[in-house]
């Protein structure tokens, strides 16, 4: 990954963080907020492979763990987004088709939310009703896919525009 691309990815992650923490809570449905940072990590994974996405996922997740009003055990989002970055990277293709993008968003969102909630269940942080958990995760998943369908192509296009990939000779 080149420097302008890395800078753009960091910038996109920061914008996603602000959207997720400060903007979407005001428009939340049943309090559930789309995981915007996750979508950026998925987009980066689809283009640049697992390693970059894992590092970005770790960093973005860490910020989500620490930024107020987060109060869960730190490292849970970091682990969840790291795994999502790995999955997205493994699904990467040179020119991702729309269906691939959508499937990747759904898969990564499912994996990340599962890792996050399961780590919560294991650490008993906080102890909640499993039925409520499933409902919330389902809503979050749908939100991620809907927003991902709009946002991930934008991030991909931004990345492409910044530095077009050369066609293989």
């Amino acid at each position, binding site marked *: 990954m080149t420097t302008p691309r890395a800078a753009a990815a960091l910038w996109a992650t920061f914008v996603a963080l602000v959207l997720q923490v400060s903007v979407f809570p005001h428009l939340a449905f049943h309090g559930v907020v789309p995981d915007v940072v996750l979508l950026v990590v998925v987009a980066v994974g689809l283009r640049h492979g697992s390693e970059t996405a894992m590092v970005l996922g770790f960093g973005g997740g860490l910020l989500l763990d*620490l*930024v107020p*009003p987060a109060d*869960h055990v730190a*490292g849970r989002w970091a*682990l969840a987004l*790291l795994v999502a970055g790995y999955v997205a990277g493994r699904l990467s293709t040179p020119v991702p088709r729309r269906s691939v993008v959508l499937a990747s968003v759904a898969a990564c969102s499912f994996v990340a939310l599962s890792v996050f909630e399961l780590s919560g269940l294991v*650490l008993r942080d906080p102890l909640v009703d499993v039925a409520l958990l499933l409902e919330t995760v389902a809503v979050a998943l749908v939100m991620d896919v809907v927003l991902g369908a709009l946002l991930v192509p934008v991030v991909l296009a931004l990345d492409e525009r910044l530095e077009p990939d050369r066609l293989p000779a």
Partner: protein
Amino acid sequence: MTLLQERHHEHDRLNRRGSLEPREPGRPRRSRAVALVLACLTLMTLDLVGGDDSPVDGARRLVGEAYAPVEAGVNTVLGPFFAVGDWFHTQDQLVEDVGRLEAENDQLRGDLATLDFDRNRLREYDGLTATAEQIGYALVPARVIGVGAAQTFSRTVTIDAGTDAGLRPDLTVVSAAGLVGRVIRVTSTTATVLLVIDADSTVGGRVGSSMKIGFLHGRGDLGDFGRTARLDLELVDQTTVPARGDTVVTWGSQDGAPYVSGVPVGTVRSVYSSVRDTTQRAVIDPYVDFGSLDLVGVVVPSGTDSDRAVVEPDGTMQ
């Protein structure tokens, strides 16, 4: 052997020789992947074992301080747009009010058309002043500027007052309706509040009619998906049964930290007794609507230095 298998085989062998053949693009270096996962696990362990004075809290404070101006900026720029929702919400009441007053005085209709958001806010401040008088503590007024996402299952909010306003961790947070929660973390301009409905929250409660004490636990529900936000009350003395509709107030702790005494929490909705555990559990309907928190007050010692007006127990502003 097909061509594909042959090529794959060759590729593999080249890699094993340690040549500069590029890695498969999607696959991460194992060492880095392991390092990142271990970093996450270490962080979780540190935070979990550290408990209340976890080493991660320093980092949280740092990120909070850095993020506070961003959050304030977003709220300033987008606040009017978010308020549009409230405006439509109050429109029903507004129409009703206008209809009633029309009969009395046509003149008032013009004035009424301009009241909405501002008047609601004024009413909230009035309510908070009344609360300060009622519970007898000084309050620092603050607004909720951030709400934790539901999928994290920790029910926390950010308020726009911090150490500059005289706040510190373990202060009681109330609204005009009743108990909201307690401050768990502060930055210079913001504070994180743990709501009483969080599954980790425990508050000492007292049943108003019998003066019996017990512990109130949150359930982690915000009141969505057809569920209502409820609290569970476990009484210390198992022989008394609280009656439906009894008021529950806080019981208070030493030096008023984290909860001061006598703040109304909610009313008893129903009582369950478990024969096996020989315990009784009362379900409490909180007075506060946690889905629409806006103006809250943080209980501070009277005469606290603050960057804003403090509502004193006698209802004056200082």
